[in-house]
């Protein structure tokens, strides 16, 4: 059995557009996930029984079912609800819902990590309440959750591969089309694996560099 990577190499423009598709799904999905995360935490902080129960049920359902079943469900449920989206937008909705459940937990942890006494101390020192919020609540909370959100983003980027199951345009979908044309299954998926590995390594490096510059004030 001889390996032939030339057909995969020849398809590089297609692969490149697939990579862009993967980034598009990951960024759009993460943006939606963050919106759901902030909304979810805001609802939980109302401390009302029924809304809190609904948010917690949402988290448990998402965390204890596979993403593949979730994306199929969204794919069939949206048209019944009268929402007609193309596969790529459907994938973004599914990714956003999935990532949102994890984002709620991460953001809740960050907000709860700021003791109330710290806000009171800031006010007692004569800081304006906007300064207190920005410097004493927001920055430390963001710094606390930034690493978890970064790994969540990488996880979500890897999850986009599953969106090929509803034919959303991304790297794995593009790979399956190249495979169907060339029958070079192993070569295609081996190349895709290397590309995904590079994507997560580069993303990890960029995110940690941003984190180091954005939150580089002294620890104590």
């Amino acid at each position, binding site marked *: 059995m001889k390996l032939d990577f030339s057909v995969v190499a020849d398809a590089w423009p297609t692969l490149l557009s697939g990579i862009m598709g993967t980034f598009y799904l990951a960024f759009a999905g993460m943006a939606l996930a963050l919106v759901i995360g902030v909304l979810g935490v805001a609802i939980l902080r109302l401390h009302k029984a029924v809304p809190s129960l609904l948010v917690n049920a949402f988290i448990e359902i998402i*965390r*204890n*079912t596979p*993403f*593949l079943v979730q994306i199929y469900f969204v794919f069939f449920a949206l048209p019944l609800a009268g929402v007609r989206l193309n596969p790529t937008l459907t994938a973004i909705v599914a990714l956003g819902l999935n990532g949102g459940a994890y984002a709620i937990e991460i953001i809740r942890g960050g907000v709860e990590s700021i003791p109330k006494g710290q806000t009171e101390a800031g006010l007692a020192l004569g800081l304006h309440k906007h300064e207190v919020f920005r410097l004493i609540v927001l920055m430390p909370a963001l710094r606390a959750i930034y690493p978890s959100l970064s790994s969540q983003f990488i996880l979500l980027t890897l999850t986009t591969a*599953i969106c090929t199951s509803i034919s959303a345009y991304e790297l794995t979908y593009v790979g399956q089309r190249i495979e169907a044309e060339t029958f070079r299954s192993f070569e295609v998926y081996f190349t895709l694996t290397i590309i*995904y590995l590079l994507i997560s390594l580069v993303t990890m490096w960029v995110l940690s560099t941003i984190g180091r510059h954005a939150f580089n004030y002294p620890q104590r």
Partner: protein
Amino acid sequence: MDIQHFTYLLQGLVWTLFLAVIGFAGGIPFGILVALMRVSSSPWLRRAAMAWIGLFQGTPLLMQLFVAYFGLPLLGFNVAAWAAVAVALTFHASAFLGEIWRGAIEAVPRGQTEAALALGLHARSRMVDVIMPQAFKLSLPATVGFLVQLLKGTSLAAIVGFVELTRSGTIVSNQIYRPLLVFGVVGAMYFAMCWPLSLWGRQLERRMAAATAK
């Protein structure tokens, strides 16, 4: 959906459990090996383990399944689909469990190693009799959490064409044209397997936090 379709889904569920059990059981010995390499004194063993962990944590599980499914025959192993999936899940689990257990081994207080050294225990006994039993306890919540992840991960075998729970859901859904009902039932079945495990993991975590707070 009649009883016949439901039984078909249950058959898929058995395969899902089978894949998860095989992946987890295979992941245990390889995971211990990866964890021990990761904390060994040889830099080459450490680097090899780090590369192994990075490879599986930095690529989608779906790609790992594809590469095993199409790669094993190229290496001369003509194995059935379920076996290729089982191999991929085993390697996947070994990397994640190895990383979890490395963290647990390093979380055992340094004084324990020093005390074992002072008692004159040799390297193997220090690790097997002193460090690993304590690390096992520390790692339990994260290990249970990974088991849930692995159970959900077996659903990707459906994309390779293996008929487990999700794939049998797709087949039934194509027959009776009731996708929401079918995937609702399939989702509920996964939930019934994963949720008790998640609750157990959280309970272990809470108990451990209470124990270490003292």
